[in-house]
């Protein structure tokens, strides 16, 4: 398999926007008290302006990577650098959460404006900016609606507008389309591609969908189940903009898809904590542990 640009890895890391090196993170379990390793010695770097998908089976600490990069939690060991510095949450980074996390008692307009509180924009500018991005995701008619009145797809568009509204240089997206129906998801993926084409942020996109990972990203990072580590990084190498052709029909897409599928299947089958644990199933391309 033609894996990541291993020759230029060092050079890329030097100019990378996001660098995680040797990062470990454990969480206290509520009921047992013993900590669970979410990430172990994770290395990853994302060049500026790149769209990187983090792909892995459920519960491999993908979300933890995003929370570390946003600076919401500190690493137990190792270092996380964003633009050369320890990360601090704020409007420079947009976060799209899996369960939307809209404020139920605030209107769509107020929800988007809330993301602009620390931008230094004045009240009028905040309102204008929010309105612009609400219109961009096609929800201008619902600006004064409450989240409870919107469908799942519409809520996700509000969450997208909120993340884009502060015009962040980094976007962190945590399985943003996992909880919406298949048709809406396809449309939202195109919507995201178009937004990204207009506003070229560095994107970390967590997903467990192989198709989605390839379709959106410049590079796919494959992660192992708990404790999460990077197993492989693969350049997608398909031209942008991708909504203008049938990406699924390209030989490259088909090749990547079947490779990543079998890699994930092997990961799950060889993971003792998985429901499908079956170590004897002669996996062809088992990653070395």
């Amino acid at each position, binding site marked *: 398999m033609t894996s990541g640009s291993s020759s230029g890895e060092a050079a890329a890391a030097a100019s990378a926007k996001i660098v995680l090196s040797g990062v470990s993170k454990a969480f206290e379990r509520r009921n047992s008290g013993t900590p669970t390793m979410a990430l172990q010695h994770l290395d990853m770097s994302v060049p500026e302006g790149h769209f990187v998908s983090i792909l892995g089976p459920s519960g491999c600490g993908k979300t933890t990577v995003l929370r570390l990069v946003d600076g919401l939690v500190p690493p137990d060991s190792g270092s996380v650098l964003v633009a050369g510095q320890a990360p601090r949450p704020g409007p420079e980074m947009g976060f799209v959460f899996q369960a939307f996390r809209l404020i139920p008692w*605030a209107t769509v307009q107020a929800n988007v404006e809330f993301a602009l509180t620390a931008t230094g924009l004045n009240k009028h500018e905040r309102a204008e900016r929010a309105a612009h991005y609400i219109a961009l995701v096609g929800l201008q008619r619902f600006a004064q609606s409450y989240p409870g009145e919107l469908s799942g797809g519409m809520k996700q568009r509000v969450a997208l507008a909120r993340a884009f509204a502060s015009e962040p240089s980094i976007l962190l997206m945590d399985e943003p389309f996992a909880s919406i129906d298949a048709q809406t998801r396809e449309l939202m993926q195109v919507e995201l591609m178009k937004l990204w084409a207009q506003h070229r942020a560095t994107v970390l996109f967590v997903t467990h969908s192989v198709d989605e990972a390839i379709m959106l990203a410049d590079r796919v990072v494959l992660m192992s189940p708990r404790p999460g580590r990077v197993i492989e990084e693969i350049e997608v190498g398909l031209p942008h903009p991708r909504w203008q052709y049938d990406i699924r029909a390209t030989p490259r897409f088909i090749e990547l898809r079947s490779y990543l599928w079998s890699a994930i299947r092997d990961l799950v089958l060889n993971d003792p904590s998985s429901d499908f644990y079956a170590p004897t199933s002669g996996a062809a391309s088992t990653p070395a542990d």
Partner: protein
Amino acid sequence: MIALYRFLFLIFLIVLWWVISLNVRANFIPSPWATLLAAQKLLADGKLIVALGDSLITFAGGYALGILVAIPVGLVMGVFLPVGKTLEIYVYALAAMPRVAFIPLIIVFLGLGFPAKIFIVFLGAVMPVLINTYAGVLAVDQELIEMARSVRAGRMQIFARIVLPSAVPFIIVGLRLGATIALINTVVAELYTAVRGLGGLLAIYGNTFRMAEYFVIVIVLAIIGVIVSEGLRHLEKRLVRWKTSD
């Protein structure tokens, strides 16, 4: 439609009351008509208005004082968790005990007048509001707080935009429970301290078997209860407009 049914049910209750009054001996239950006449008389000689005024002052004073103490304390307990965890066991203990037990002590310190009455009402109203406010803050969605942190909202902003609004429905539940107990304690206070107000009239008419007048007071108390709880329901509708029934 429901309003009509409610009205019809009221008629049914009055008829039931009337039938019972006809069948109970010795005027223990006055007829609706006799009660109405008694109400007219009580209104005309001003006794009812004076008593109502006394009771409302006691009720509103103690209830307002309870709210003024309970909401800030509940918020502080919820926001500063060590404070909350330290105090909660005492709060629950106090809430669980019959606070009527304090009345002799209150009389010793505050006498038999309004201060004692208002304090008795306060003691009843404060606990449900406090406990529900505290629970409301604890129930705040931690994911929303993390979202707010991710956009670098300040502590005050997180409190004002996330924590407080999320506690509002709980606080309103507390206000409703508090209002009920405050009304009960108003009557209790008027029975146990200087006999005044609606509770005082209740005692006087009850002890002298003037049942028509006694019933007037009972009905007035019921009406106060309805007005207060409907008012709070209205407030709830206004404050939690965002809750859609889906």
